[in-house]
């Protein structure tokens, strides 16, 4: 990608912080109207989303962002963004194929797509790559490894470019039900 090329992102706004999801990882988005609660030991994975007669794993990205980044003040979380596993890294696809889906076989899940709950005030925006900054060198590695790829400083808030593939691939979204990823 050249510096002049535009990056299409989903822009998720909270009070003093915002998050960017690369459009290339988001096959579609829709209102999360048909949601089914399932018993789960995972804090951010306890729902299924019904889309076109199929049932998708529905990760609560909204809760994850609130707890992990101490984000506050978003609208309700009635939107879902759909990611296609075929577009994710092989390691992530393997995690779902060999570990996640077999354990949940009784639920007859869509094994091609997963969904993420996001706030309703999410909008689509275009950015120039030079609006983003890499993380500072001394702290770059642990952030990038967990899917927090870059920073988007604006006058009003600080933004983080997130990688959905790495967020699930690093198992952050499979945290246990009894604990938060980050304590307040």
């Amino acid at each position: 990608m050249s510096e002049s090329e535009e990056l299409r992102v989903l822009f998720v706004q909270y009070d003093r912080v915002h998050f960017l999801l690369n459009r290339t990882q988001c096959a579609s988005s829709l209102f999360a109207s048909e949601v089914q609660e399932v018993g789960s030991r995972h804090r951010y994975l306890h729902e299924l989303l019904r889309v076109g007669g199929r049932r998708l794993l529905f990760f609560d990205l909204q809760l994850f962002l609130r707890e992990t980044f101490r984000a506050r003040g978003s609208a309700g979380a009635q939107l879902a963004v759909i990611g296609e596993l075929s577009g994710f890294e092989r390691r992530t696809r393997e995690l779902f194929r060999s570990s996640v889906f077999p354990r949940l076989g009784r639920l007859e899940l869509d094994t091609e797509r997963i969904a993420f709950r996001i706030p309703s005030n999410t909008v689509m925006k275009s950015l120039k790559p030079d609006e983003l900054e890499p993380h500072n060198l001394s702290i770059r590695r642990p952030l990038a490894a967990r899917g927090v790829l870059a920073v988007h400083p604006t006058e009003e808030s600080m933004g983080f470019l997130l990688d959905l593939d790495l967020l699930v691939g690093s198992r952050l979204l499979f945290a246990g039900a009894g604990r938060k990823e980050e304590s307040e």
Partner: protein
Amino acid sequence: MDNASLLRTLTERAARNRVKDESGDRSLAKYVVFMIGERSYALPADRVREISFDNELYYVPFLPSYVRGYANRHGQPFTVLDLRMLFEKSALDSSTLLILNIDNDQLALLITDVDEIVKLPAGAVHPLASEEESARYFAHSITVEEREVFVIDVGTLLQRLERDVERI
């Protein structure tokens, strides 16, 4: 402190600094002395890029507790280190930053306030004899108005950060 007292303090300090400046001693070393809570620390002046007040701090996860997050300085993210958290396990409540001047990274220290900028002769710089754990973060100490002030070793601080981040 009322404004009259403040003005007097500033005037007296300026007079002191003028005397130091006029001494013409090329061997003087310049330090920025600052407060973190009740404690005074110093940095060589060439390690300090600027002092910045009223900064918003943005929390960043997955990092050691003494990394308080990012500050946004003119569109550039600066990693903010809280030395009180590192030394005493107690978070500093402040929005004042001392922006460091270092190669290849953008770091700032969370401080309470800047005390003064001093020029000192070589005789006012002392090696450290302390055996304390935190002493390894100090290069040496200086004497400022009969107080001993520890000079932070930014290199050691960076090594500690790199080591802690590597373990995450």
